[in-house]
């Protein structure tokens, strides 16, 4: 049974992203616990990478702050394992292929499983290169989330047929970051996915306001927000718990209000 799919059962899912270790791991720990109490259904934990090519400036800077503070993959796993029982929602890891590969893909997925992380999202590893990850994910029962983009067109069905957990619908061209307007036809993307599988669809890239979230939730099963939250963390530093949780609550309410 898929824990990630279960997270979509209570209506529309809200999926916040934070960069682990920004500004430090103690803050990340509090955020994981408190966001899960504030309505997050799945939390995406970003393992920082020196060269995150799919990220806009906000998350690039968060990755650098975290690495400069001495965050490592091992320290992140240790922290998650310690507080996992207090986190009331599912966890997914978002990072790039290199930190996984160099850590040892087998060891990485074993650690995910040991720490109660149900899924991985790897934006620089497309369908054609799944072989680097899928065998190890399967071995340890970690679900590999597939991404589809506004340029995917004829690739959507192929990708969706093999999807696990949820399908990450990239709503905009370019990199992550807050956008004032989302012009991609999300309903068409989602209906192409639904024509071949029943994997839930979550939309991300560019969403920041409750209005945008509400509008996306009309078509999708979940909404992912990264840069808008990382911005709050950057602004408030260690004092970010309350403003982030207030934001999470407002977004969850907005997507349930359709």
């Amino acid at each position, binding site marked *: 049974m898929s824990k990630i799919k279960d997270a979509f059962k209570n209506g529309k899912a809200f999926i916040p992203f934070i960069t682990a270790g920004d500004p430090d791991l103690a803050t990340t720990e509090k955020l994981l616990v408190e966001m899960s109490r504030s309505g997050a259904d799945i939390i995406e934990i970003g393992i920082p*990478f*020196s*060269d995150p*090519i*799919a990220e*806009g*400036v906000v998350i*690039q800077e968060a990755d*650098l702050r975290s*690495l400069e503070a001495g965050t*490592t*993959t*091992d320290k992140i796993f240790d922290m998650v394992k310690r507080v996992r029982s207090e986190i009331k929602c599912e966890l997914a890891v978002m990072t*790039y*292929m*290199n*930190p*996984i*590969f*160099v*850590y040892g893909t087998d060891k990485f997925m074993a650690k995910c499983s040991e720490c109660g992380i149900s899924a991985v999202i790897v*934006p*620089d*590893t*497309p*369908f*054609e*290169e799944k*072989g*680097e990850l899928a065998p190890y994910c399967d071995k340890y029962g970690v679900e590999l989330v597939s*991404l*589809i*983009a*506004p*340029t*995917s*067109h004829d*690739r959507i069905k192929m*990708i969706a047929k093999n999807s696990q957990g949820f399908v990450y619908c*990239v709503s905009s*061209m*370019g*990199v992550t970051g807050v956008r004032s307007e989302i012009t991609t036809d999300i309903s068409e993307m989602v209906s192409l996915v639904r024509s071949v599988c029943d994997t839930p669809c979550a939309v991300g890239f560019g969403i920041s306001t409750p209005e945008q979230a509400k509008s996306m939730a009309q078509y999708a099963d979940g909404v992912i927000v990264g840069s808008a939250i990382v911005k709050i963390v950057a602004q408030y530093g260690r004092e970010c718990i309350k403003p982030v949780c207030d934001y999470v609550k407002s977004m969850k309410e907005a997507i349930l209000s359709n």
Partner: protein
Amino acid sequence: MSKGKFGIHGGQFVPETLMNAINEFEEAYNKYKDDPEFVSELDTLMREYAGRPSRLYYAEKMTNDLGGAKIYLKREDLNHTGSHKLNNCLGQCLLAKKMGKTRVIAETGAGQHGVATATVAALLGLECEIFMGKEDTIRQALNVYRMKLLGAKVNAVETGTMTLKDAVNEAMREWTNRVSDTHYVLGSVMGPHPFPTVVRDFQSVIGREIKAQLLEKEGRLPDVVMACVGGGSNAMGAFYEFIKEDSVALIGCEAAGLGVDNPKNAATIANGTLGIFHGMKSYFCQNEYGQIAPVYSISAGLDYPGIGPEHANLADTGRAQYVPVTDEEAVCAFEYLSKTEGIIPAIESSHAVAHCMKIAPTMGKDKIIVVNLSGRGDKDVAAIARYRGEDIYE
């Protein structure tokens, strides 16, 4: 299925947003590479515009001075825009045009690839935008102005180490932002498939010419072909024709900066480990957690933490040898070739000249070394003067 493999290296590790763009590029390449009209158009540009074939020059004074193997210099520095980079830009921009693209983007380190891309964009009427690390825009200020003169927009990249890898990151980000009208003219034999193959094919003219020219002059193949390696395009271009010729030794010269044992170096084969970055599986300078290292070389063009996947495979199989060359050795070679032959080589190419100076005296006079002189050194004069303590600014 993973495509574009060289042994265990290569592949297509890019965001989904780019997959259709690189698939479309691969289809276009396969469609046009043997198309008589495309081939003839490219040949004409290579001959009439770039000035090919470039000379294979017998460096007699250098040969006599070093007292060993006979040394030939493949004069890619005489190519239009002053380096081998134009060969690939002519090919890729012509393809971009056939694909109906109206805009090209590119990364650049020393500025040579940026200048070459801006040049061809001007010639073919394409809009052009170049990404260059801010550090490099300072080291190579003249090239920045050259690109602007050619009509390109130059973006100084202020993220990360502000050098070549960051310029590649930013060019890739820009490509995900705008794929419909834009082609990314990657400048080296790196990145996701099909770039390593396409760039190698467009640069392989270097090795084909070396072979034909040396057969004419000496009636035989060289014993050694050597070239500097950052991403590795001039080396791959020089090596490719000779991979099947077992008697020809292939040597890639990496930038060792302050020394392979000093953290300030960019010698990927010497110090790198297997990783997956910038679209490819290959060797990278990185830490135990896969964080890419901030590499260093006096040469902005070799200041890159990775190496093309085909080179990684040639290193694995032992078909090519990769040797580290320090800043100091490269600068000495830069000065030596200037004084001995009256040829000022690019600081990148000087890494190969430096290794030639080491091994030529150890080889018999009946042996032949070909050094690929990938670019000319005008762009480096001010930086070398500063390295030697002269207060010169451009």
